[in-house]
């Protein structure tokens, strides 16, 4: 097994864990954490492909990852803000009980 394949496996695992958390957990905060895990799996892929790609000296993958982390930070802030305001409104973070958009 090449080192690249190892990184990709770890990333795939991380992504699966994140996806599972986001789909199964009922607590909104844990869902958010799951989403963050998926994002980080993608970051890991970016770094790995860059490092073992044809131009490891060009720093492109690192730039991608840093941008993605910055965006993720902003997204986390917005997401937490949403959750707090939803909590204030509905007095719960249980996603199954927040179903006011029901048709």
């Amino acid at each position, binding site marked *: 097994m090449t080192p690249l394949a190892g990184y990709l496996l770890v990333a795939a695992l991380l992504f699966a864990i994140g996806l599972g958390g986001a789909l199964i957990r009922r607590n909104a905060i844990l869902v958010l954490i799951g989403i963050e895990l998926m994002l980080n799996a993608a970051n890991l892929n970016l770094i790995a492909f860059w490092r073992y790609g044809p131009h490891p000296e060009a720093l492109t993958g690192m730039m991608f990852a840093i941008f993605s982390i910055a965006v993720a930070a902003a997204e986390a802030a917005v997401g937490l803000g949403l959750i707090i305001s939803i909590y204030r409104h509905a007095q719960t973070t249980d996603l199954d009980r927040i*179903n006011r958009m029901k048709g």
Partner: protein
Amino acid sequence: MLIQEGAAAAFHPQIAGPASFAVRNLWLVPAVPIVAAGVIALLKQPRRKLSAGLAIGSLGFSMLLAFVAFAHVAAGWASGVAVRETVNFTWIQAGTASVALGWVLDPLSAVMLVMVTFVGLLIFIYSTGYMAHDENFTRFFCFLSLFAGAMLGLVISNSILLLFMCWELVGLTSYLLIGFWYHKPSAAAAAKKAFMTTRVGDVLFLLGMVWLFAQTGTLLFYNNGAGSMEGWALGGLISAHAGLGLTAAGAIGLLIFAGAVGKSGQFPLHVWLPDAMEGPTPVSALIHAATMVAAGVYLVARVYPLMQAGAAANGTTTALIVITWIGSITAVFAALIAIAQNDIKRILAYSTVSQLGYMMAGLGIGGVAVGMFHLITHAFFKSLLFLGAGSVIHGCHEEQDVRHMGGLKAYMPWTFATYAIAMLALCGFPLLFSGFWSKDAILESAKGWEISKGPYYLLVFGAVLTAFYMTRQVSYVFFGKWRGHHPAHESPRVMVLPMAILALFAVLLGLIGTPAWPWFRSFLEGHGAEANLSVFGEPAFLMLLGTSCIVVFLGIGIAWWLYGNRSPAAEEPDALEKAVPLVWAGLRDRLYVDEFYDVTVIAFYRAWARVANWLDRRVWGGIVAGVALAFRGLAHLDRLIDESWVNGGFDKGCEELSTGGGLLARMQTGRVQTYLRLLALAFVVLAAILIWSSRP
């Protein structure tokens, strides 16, 4: 001639060159107050200080620019150049025809700019005191600023169209300000009357403008030889005949003069001006005494080359003769009426009409300088008289009837002192006051007029009447015993100070127009002025001085003998009324001009209105009702079709849609994670298909 005709030869005209700083920025003079008016219009009622500050600040800025422009022209004059700079531009281009606008800086506009901005600024300052308790303070300053801007635009315009637009704008602001207290029915009626009466003159003015454009092909007055007031165009106007023995120049001149008759309150269109006194007093001072009503005189002065074109050997034209006679008749006519009025502002209003008549006569006989000099001096002392009247009205608790005043010189010393100076200037009190010099210039040229001596006698008689009615007014208001109810009080400093400054100028302005040093005349006509004190010793001057003295002292003497210090009770009939009741009644009722219009023009319109009303109700109304009935029938038919066929099908369709929507809505659980799971599932399926299809 008494006034020395040019010690030096006439100046050479200015050679066209790059526009100077003064003329390039001249447009700012009217633009700044107009912008200020726009800003004030957006302010809320309580922003009093800001709105007054904006109005005064913008006009102050205009005044500075006007002084710069004046200094530029005066510097040109001092170095022997008759400055006339223009900036012209095309406003609308339609095919080969173009509508050009522009502005002009010459001695005429420079003098007028300085006068309008200076007097205007003082009256603005006075207004902050006079209107202090009015709830519509900001609206007042908005209108006042708009007026100032429009008036300044009128003064500088080099295009007859631009002049006409500003002319109508000042007419509009005049309407708005006369009707400022629109809750008073009399004020609303006076505003309407002013607007419609001046409209009569304006229509003729418009005709004259269109004719001028058709004949000369240009709207500009001066355009390096191609303007309508310059040789080439005037030559064409003289050679074209307009019928009735008039050249086109004469006919157009008369039409434009008709506009001036309306705006400057000349007989027979003077009826609106006395009624315009319903507006606040600062408005009467600024618009209906000093500036706007003088716009007619200014217009005639501006198109003077046209009026004078094709002059006969005696130096005059039909247009100028008409102007002279109308002016002289107005001067006496209004002065007669002024004698028998009891409203303090109405007396002044008729006096304004009369003085405007003097200006017109001065223009007709003596030329631009004579008429304009009286315009400038009159602007100062007449606005001062109105401000004084405002101060009196303010001090007497909104009382306007002179019979209920009296003895105010003890209560209001400042107002009395300034009012007395202005009154003496208006009467033409010899030597000391500006009014004497400007009125004498008119009388002097009238005396030398070759056509007829009629205007001279009329104007001299008018001067006696002027002294008479002003003395009558002053003795009623300031002398004798107080006849009102509450004691009067002096006005605040912000009102007295502008009056004091105006009083100063009412005296000093005479210095620039004496026969010994006719600076004003030389400045306007473009030749040198030399001081020549020996003129005072000439028999012609002494004779004129003698006539003036006799005239003034006769007027003042008779009036003082009849009214001085008598202080009759308010209900007692007037001294003149006792002597000649019939004449008095005629004068008191304003010589029945209004009544005459009532039974002629207005009766005619009323009859027409009745006919139109009948036509409207019976004929046109019947047709409209018939059409309406037909459409109602159609509408009933439509409704029947709608209800029986269309509605049924539509309702069924709607029901189906509604059930379908209900079924689809069940898919929306509202749970985020359900959506996510479906998304994930779809993703997995998609991935499986992709892998499956791309296997080797």
